[in-house]
């Protein structure tokens, strides 16, 4: 990665970290409801892969830990936060919530809350790309635990069979909710499970963005060149619990501390400092600027935005009736 890109990505990763931490605070203050799944610790995964892909051009789909993926694709952080606040200005107009962030214009095809649900949807998006003949690819980000669902295997089989342009990124954070991977999964290294489908697969460190980027470049090139699917496993760790109601009783504080010593943001920051591209003071300024942006723009926008109107409760269940009348009434021209 070029120095300028690394500096830009560091800025983005700090935004992603501080955004999520601010969500935590807003949840405690009861500004955000429902379930909230936060991303700190895993930032190098999404950022490393998407630096190798084309955000806003390639189609991205993921599970419920989706805020950062949406923002990385180009969604406005203000719209994402407003969605968490349930506001009409939210990315899904307050109808989706934390687990269902969407940005169709940026080709962020959504966060889905059934574990493993996005696998076949991603393959279907790839099928559509194949039919239309574009150079886009579909990228599916999911966690390791999703691979224990039946549709994982069904989808790998079809993606390989039909040579679909889809990249499966497995963010292996070692836990499926509160059960460690050793206790739920016979094979810990997920890329090995893919071998049976004749899909090329790789595993790498998910904390060092430059390692992720290099592995992702190979993966993206493979898929974009028309060679069919690819599976990339990134070894990572989520600092917080699965969701907000998780006291992390299933793992030790020592283990958490060990992972925090390989923090993805600090790895990149320290490298940039060592290379003389920035100073610690620069980094501290960056953090302050980020917090100020989140407070003065993102939170302010979300606080001040209007609620959806109760009269619009049933809007968006079906397509606009007026546009569908020929088929609903049979009175086609």
């Amino acid at each position: 990665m070029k120095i300028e890109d690394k500096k830009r990505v560091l800025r983005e990763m700090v935004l992603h970290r501080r955004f999520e931490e601010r969500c935590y605070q807003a949840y405690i203050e009861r500004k955000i409801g429902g379930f909230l799944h936060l991303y700190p610790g895993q930032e190098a995964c999404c950022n490393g892969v998407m630096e190798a892909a084309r955000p806003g051009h390639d189609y991205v789909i993921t599970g419920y830990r989706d805020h950062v993926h949406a923002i990385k694709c180009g969604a406005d952080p203000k719209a994402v936060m407003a969605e968490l606040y349930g506001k009409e200005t939210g990315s899904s107009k307050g109808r989706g919530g934390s687990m269902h962030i969407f940005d169709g214009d940026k080709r962020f095809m959504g966060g889905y809350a059934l574990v493993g649900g996005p696998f076949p949807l991603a393959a279907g998006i790839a099928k559509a790309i194949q039919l239309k003949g574009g150079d886009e690819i579909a990228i599916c980000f999911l966690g390791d635990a999703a691979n224990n669902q039946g549709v994982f295997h069904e989808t790998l089989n079809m993606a390989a069979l039909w040579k679909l342009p889809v990249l499966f990124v497995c963010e292996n954070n070692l836990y499926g909710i509160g059960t460690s991977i050793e206790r739920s999964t016979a094979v810990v290294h997920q890329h090995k499970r893919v071998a049976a489908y004749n899909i090329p697969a790789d595993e790498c460190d998910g904390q060092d963005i430059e390692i992720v980027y290099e592995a992702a470049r190979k993966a993206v090139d493979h898929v974009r060149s028309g060679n069919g699917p690819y599976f990339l496993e990134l070894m990572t760790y989520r600092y917080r619990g699965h969701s907000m109601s998780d006291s992390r009783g299933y793992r030790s504080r020592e283990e958490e501390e060990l992972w925090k010593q390989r923090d993805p943001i600090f790895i990149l920051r320290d490298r940039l400092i060592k290379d003389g591209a920035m100073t610690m003071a620069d980094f501290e300024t960056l953090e302050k600027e980020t917090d100020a942006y989140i407070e003065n723009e993102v939170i302010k926008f979300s606080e001040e935005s209007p609620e959806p109107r109760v009269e619009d409760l049933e809007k968006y269940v079906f397509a606009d009736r007026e546009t569908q009348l020929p088929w609903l009434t049979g009175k086609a021209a």
Partner: protein
Amino acid sequence: MANIMYWEAIQRAHDEEMARDPLVICMGEDIGVAGGTYKATKGLYEKYGPLRVMDTPISEGGFTGLGIGASFLGVRPIIEIMSVNFAWLAMDQMFNSAAKVRYMSGGQLTAPCVFRSAGGAAHQLGAQHSARMEKVFMGIAGLRVVTPSNPKQAYGLLKSAIRCDDPVFINEHELMYNMKGEVPDGEYFHPLEGSEVARSGTDVTLFGYNISVHWCLKAAEILDKQYGISAEVIDLYSLAPLDREGIKKSVSKTHRAVIAEEDEAPVGVGSEVIAIINEECFFELDAAPVRVHSALVPQPYNHTLEKAAIPDHEDVVKAVLKLFGKA
């Protein structure tokens, strides 16, 4: 008007729509090279090729989800689920993805896909191949459910379902694919909403859909000839949404209602129609509405037991006679 079979009508709708729009595709088990279990996709593989006529692996959840994902980008997949019994495996994707994506994305994404599936008791297919599951589909927000009772509807409903931007589930019946009927020669779009008066009458309304429309028509014939009772038959080809106005209009005329369904009674079309009658025209009733339905048992294999579990036109006649105090 061409007199063609139900399966031919479905095949014709596929063919016309696929010829018109390269983004209309079809997928399912054995639909391509084999031509479809019920021949509904016969000849399409040869005409449109494997990219658009996809023989899928036996992975209902997987290929249904794949079709839905493709529809997010404007592809119009017609997804055949060979038997509705297998649709249980696909329901997560149908309900959680297709039916909800428009709402939970605030209108940004839409899933314009068609699910076709054959249900119903055929001939001794046993507990896991005889289900009627319309009751499950018709209660899902964001999903339209239609069920053709004749070749004309089978053709016209599929045409409209493909064009519609909402996901549509089409409930067909295993025993009806060889039924013959008139289908217009020109292009025809059957409405996805509403109901049809299949036979006009004055004394009682018989509500049916799909195969039970035919029980009702046969019962109406018997009631007229043998008992002098004039029965109106309403064809509820749209199960979601149900036609509140049509139900109200007919019951307000006849003041009596019988609802016939092949499904088991709890939580079904019968209970919904009666709820609508209560809500819309309770004071028009001269008698309490009656349901005709299957026994609440897993479908038995034995021929005699199977027959005992499933209603037919005679049960409809009996229900009407009871309603009139003649039985």
